[in-house]
């Protein structure tokens, strides 16, 4: 067993394992922290990730009951973000089931390991649709098949099917689950991905196999695709060149959550 007992797989760790086993080993098994720049220019990259995080916070505040107009007034310092917000106001929640849970995490177990999915929004109607909504602030909308193959898609649908019964009022039939990527920076375009019992079985096999491979691996080889190293902070350790340019970044390589400081840990010792 390569992983500690308390290890939990998330979309980030699974994607790391899929992209580069060596990166997975360094980050999650050796827990080696390597603060190199992810992408250049670093400040431009930082601005993008902070914008994304702020957008997610706005949605969360709105779903807590803050009026959209009030929130819009706070965006005077960032016209681009204001545009995204306007897009969200017009189309963000349209057509979604009324039972809504923002920023909620679910977990289940598979192959002796925990799987955790942290959702931007779950919109469910008992007996009706169960929609996973994920806000994306990417500048490009990827192809449907690319999104279908992402580990986020695989994990989020699977975990909801296995762990979301209490939100739905009973087990959720896989065919009722749908994942919607909502691209607010490109006019609110949506990519919707359905689910099925057959897909659930296939995903379960895939995840089981992946977990077993990680747990039993004797070696964690470095990816042969050097393009995957451009935005990896371990590239100096692996002698794989310098930071890639922000403009070449496939934005899904970094989720906003990777960048948010855990203020809770800091705040509790202020006094």
């Amino acid at each position: 067993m390569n992983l500690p007992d308390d290890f939990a797989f998330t979309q980030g760790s699974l994607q790391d394992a899929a992209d580069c086993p060596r990166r997975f080993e360094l980050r999650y098994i050796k827990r080696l922290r390597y603060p190199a720049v992810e992408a250049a220019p670093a400040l431009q990259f930082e601005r993008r990730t902070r914008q994304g995080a702020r957008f997610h916070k706005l949605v969360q505040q709105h779903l807590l009951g803050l009026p959209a107009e009030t929130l819009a007034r706070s965006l005077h310092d960032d016209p681009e973000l204001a545009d995204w917000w306007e897009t969200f106001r017009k189309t963000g929640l349209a057509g979604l089931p009324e039972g809504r849970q923002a920023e909620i995490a679910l977990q289940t177990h598979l192959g002796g390991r925990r799987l955790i999915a942290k959702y931007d929004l779950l919109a469910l109607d008992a007996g009706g649709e169960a929609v996973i909504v994920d806000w994306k602030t990417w500048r490009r909308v990827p192809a449907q098949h690319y999104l279908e193959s992402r580990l986020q898609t695989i994990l989020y649908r699977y975990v909801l099917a296995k762990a979301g019964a209490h939100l739905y009022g009973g087990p959720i039939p896989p065919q009722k689950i749908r994942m919607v990527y909502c691209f607010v920076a490109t006019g609110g375009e949506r990519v919707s991905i359905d689910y099925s019992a057959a897909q659930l079985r296939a995903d379960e096999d895939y995840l089981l196999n992946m977990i077993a491979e990680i747990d039993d691996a004797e070696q964690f080889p470095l990816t042969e695709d050097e393009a995957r190293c451009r935005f990896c902070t371990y590239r100096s350790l692996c002698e794989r060149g310098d930071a890639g340019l922000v403009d070449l970044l496939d934005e899904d390589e970094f989720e906003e959550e990777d960048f948010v400081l855990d203020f809770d840990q800091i705040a509790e010792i202020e006094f």
Partner: protein
Amino acid sequence: MQIPLTPEQSAIAAAAPNKKIWLEGIAGSGKTSAGVGRLLHLLELGIPAESILIYVPQRSLAQPYLQALQQHSGYSGGQVAVQTIGGLSLQMVEAFWFLIAERAGFGHPYDLPNFLSLESVQYFMTKVIEPLVNQRDYFNSVRIDRARLYSQIVDNMNKAAVVGFPIDEIAPRLKGALPGGVEQGHIYDDAQTCASAFRTYCLANNLLDFSLQLEVFLDQVWNLPQARAQVRMQYRHLIADNIEEDNPASHRILADLLRLCQSALVIYDSDAGFRRFLGADPENARRLQGFCDRQEQFADSKVMSDDARALGRALAGQLGAAFVAGLGGIAEDDPQPVLIREAHRYHPQMIDWAAGRIDELVNRQGVSPREIVVMAPFMSDALRFALVEGLTARDIRARSHRPSRALRDEPAARALLTFARLAHPGWHMTPAEFDVAFAVMTAIDGLDLIRAKLLTEMLYRGGRMLPFSDVKSEAMQDRITYDLGARYDHLQTWLNKYIEGAPTEALDIFFRQLFGEVLSRPGFGFYDNSDAGNVSMNLVDSARNFRWSLEFMRRYEEGTDLGRDYLEMVDRGVIADFYLRDWIADNDDCVLIAPAYTFLLSNRAVDYQFWLNVGSEGWARRLYQPLTHPHVLSLGWLAGRIWTDDDEATMNRQTLGRLILALARRCRKEIYLGYSELSESGYEQRGLLLEAIHGLMRRSVADNINGEAHV
């Protein structure tokens, strides 16, 4: 693996999910295990995990709950929430900010709030009040450094917030209770002026230090219907642990949560309350008993040996700690078997003795290092270093934990900070030659300090590093070696290119670039070096957090140089932020070296404890804090009372009594007492703990004294 519960623990765990239970008992009596059992039982009943709130005074205290959840392999569903007053208040103020900012008096209610870390608080405090201090000659009779003075002003504001009195009552309270003459009165007035000026500045600029964050949370957010609805909807089941270590503000929130929730388990540790200096108020915590409909008590320790129990009682009784009277059995118990003690003339002898004893335990008796803790009232660098060296020489792993250890003391951080000075000549902060030598040595793998000093003597000129080719002597080039010289050149070239380019004022970015492009490459000191990676990451986090706070301010006032200001802060000894990951790493099989209170707040027991410097007054006496006072600024303080020397002496004895009892309750086998006549600084030591030990020894029967020299 979950330990089977006793019948009394099971009864708590399996109580109906509409019961509100008060559970009280001494440390080690199994209260938290019952709480963990309760959590798992609620989940087994099908209660959604996200409706369960674990509320603790600091996040590390929630670890047993989180670990139990991680090991609960059959569970699928949501995630339990873990909150502290700091975390809850921050999240809720941030979430509802735009509804309350205007009425709370902030100057820019449609701009974001700027939550300050301790570092940023110190920075802004310095910026706001230093001109006042200099112009008006404030605190001229106080002989402690400015950073410590300012931290006491922050402390006063935080105490006002957690206790619930306006900040303009700080000076009247202190003056009324601590009559120290006209001069002392001026000091309190000065502290009040500074606190008020800082608060005004924060309100005008959307800055929230912990005190203002808490005030806004309690006075504004907590009264919002939307916030109440959110809490009522989300948290239906409450488990609050170690409430005696929490402050009155937390107790107020808990009282409301107890009214709103469906079930609760409130856990209170008797004879504790060690975070008083952080506002803990165990007496006030007792009020929460009235919100519970069932009272339970666990009387017996499941951890400490009878001998440790005897020692705790005897020593605390020796100190005349009032609460010990209720424990019973002082006279009959013999504390001798659990004690091993040795006196030395000099401090290093004591350290060597401790290391030798640990060697005996680990390498001869097979004791696991994680079952040993070495404590002192304060953990100085010298003591820490000597202990780690002594243990390492005996092939024993050790780790030390000091929550407020400054980042700048870590070699990797020192090197990065020195290179930052070199790379920004415009800041006019040229580093000293020795610092450059140290940085070069740390940066280049295989370079020792002697050759690093030779290199800097030859190549560090006028604040710049010259290329290796400028070493003219072949003998010297050979001595340094061309291989190391090439690496030096790589570093030197990178720095010079950086200087010639457009240096960034984002110091965190500079650190990351230098780390990624040079220091973490093969042949350099940070390559595959997890300690250096961790320290560098902490430094990056610290510098970035600082930059974000200051960038935010540029919309309101003229900008300063962010990078230079950060370095100045570091020079002034501002402490680094504290990160939970230090505690998470505690699973390693290492001897723990820590201040006594730090060990207590890790909430675990060990087989063997070493108490060093038992002669030190630091075991009983609180820190010298001329601008603040934990008791006078507490909720229970009665207006009009005077704090006397007798009060101080009584408090010291009570505090030490509680500490000893608490340590003994966290010891399963033996306690080793280390004493040296002369302290680390060469002074004779005659503290209260030593006095109590002497008293205990005098009372003991001579036959019981086995073998070793006596304290």
